[in-house]
């Protein structure tokens, strides 16, 4: 399997999926014009990787803003990982949130309760231009 690397676009997040380390990173802002077109290949890559490798997987989300359809695909990705976890695959999720966005922190904490896999909500202080 090859690395999947996508530079952040105007409205799409940066993606770094590394099959060697099993680290899957999505970061930045996500409101692509066509989120299906953007996220489908990501989900395809993840499915193929989970099928082909038993390497432990960590999904690290450092998304600072996302629109509704991106959120839907994020949860699709979490569901794929949860299914892998159910089958004994070592999976972990880190969802990084802006410490100042208390409402997002609360909703992600709530979301975490729906999953059995290790799921860490990380609250971070960052300067506005770092997000």
């Amino acid at each position, binding site marked *: 399997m090859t690395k999947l690397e996508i530079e952040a676009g105007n409205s799409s997040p940066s993606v770094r999926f590394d099959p060697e380390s099993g680290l899957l990173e999505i970061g930045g802002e996500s409101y692509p014009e066509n989120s299906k077109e953007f996220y489908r290949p990501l989900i395809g890559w993840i499915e193929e990787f989970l099928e082909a490798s038993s390497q432990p997987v960590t999904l690290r989300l450092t998304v600072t803003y996302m629109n509704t*359809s991106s959120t839907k695909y994020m*949860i699709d990705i979490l569901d794929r990982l949860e299914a892998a976890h159910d089958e004994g695959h070592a999976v972990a999720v880190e969802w990084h949130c802006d410490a100042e966005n208390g409402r997002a922190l609360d909703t992600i904490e709530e979301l975490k309760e729906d999953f059995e896999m290790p799921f860490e909500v990380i609250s971070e202080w960052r300067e506005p231009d770092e997000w």
Partner: protein
Amino acid sequence: MSGKKSAARSKRKDIVNFEDDPVLRWSESVATDPKYQGEACFDHFLQLKNHYEALLKRFVRVTRISDSYQSSLKELNQSLTEAASRDLLTGLPNRRAMLDELAEQISRAERYGEEFALILADIDDFKGVNDTRGHEAGDHILVSVARTLESSIRREDTCARWGGEEFLICLPHTELAGARAVAEKLLEAVATSDTTYEEHQISTTISAGIAVHHGRENLDATIAKADDAMFEAKHQGKNRVYVLE
């Protein structure tokens, strides 16, 4: 799903995918296939209900997360708008915010034939403070005068930092006599305020020019009139109010 339908769907931008939704895959056969008729229906009804519940749960999750990200964006937007309309040093509305306020006053003046007054106030001998006591002392005086003006105007008035040591005060529904009374009050308040900096009492006064804007007059002309009046107040010895006849 028919080919035509899915083609139409894929043309639409920014839509989530439904192709792998089991309910949609069954839906057409459910109506006609004998294996879904009669008693056998109950099983499928339960499956459908579970599926529907899971979808609802998903919908609520997505909406809440999405709302939380959007609300933080909205807050950021508000704080940027706020920051863009404030003078950094004094915290007063800046020139740009005052121009917005004036545009609103002008449209009221034109629509209802109302008038509003402008007071242009300038700190007397400010350059001297900067030269002899340093820029930090100057900044201290600017902030101190800003606070005094702000707390001396009426609730409906707006006081902005207009330029270096100039403040522009907009008084809605105010004619000349009223504006003069406010200006005299501002002068008195500044002259008697405590403007001590690092144990030095820095005597601080302002000079003010007044102009009243009527109906369809030109705003630049009104501001220029207030400016000329303010210079005349300086010329006549400072710490006074002047109105051009």
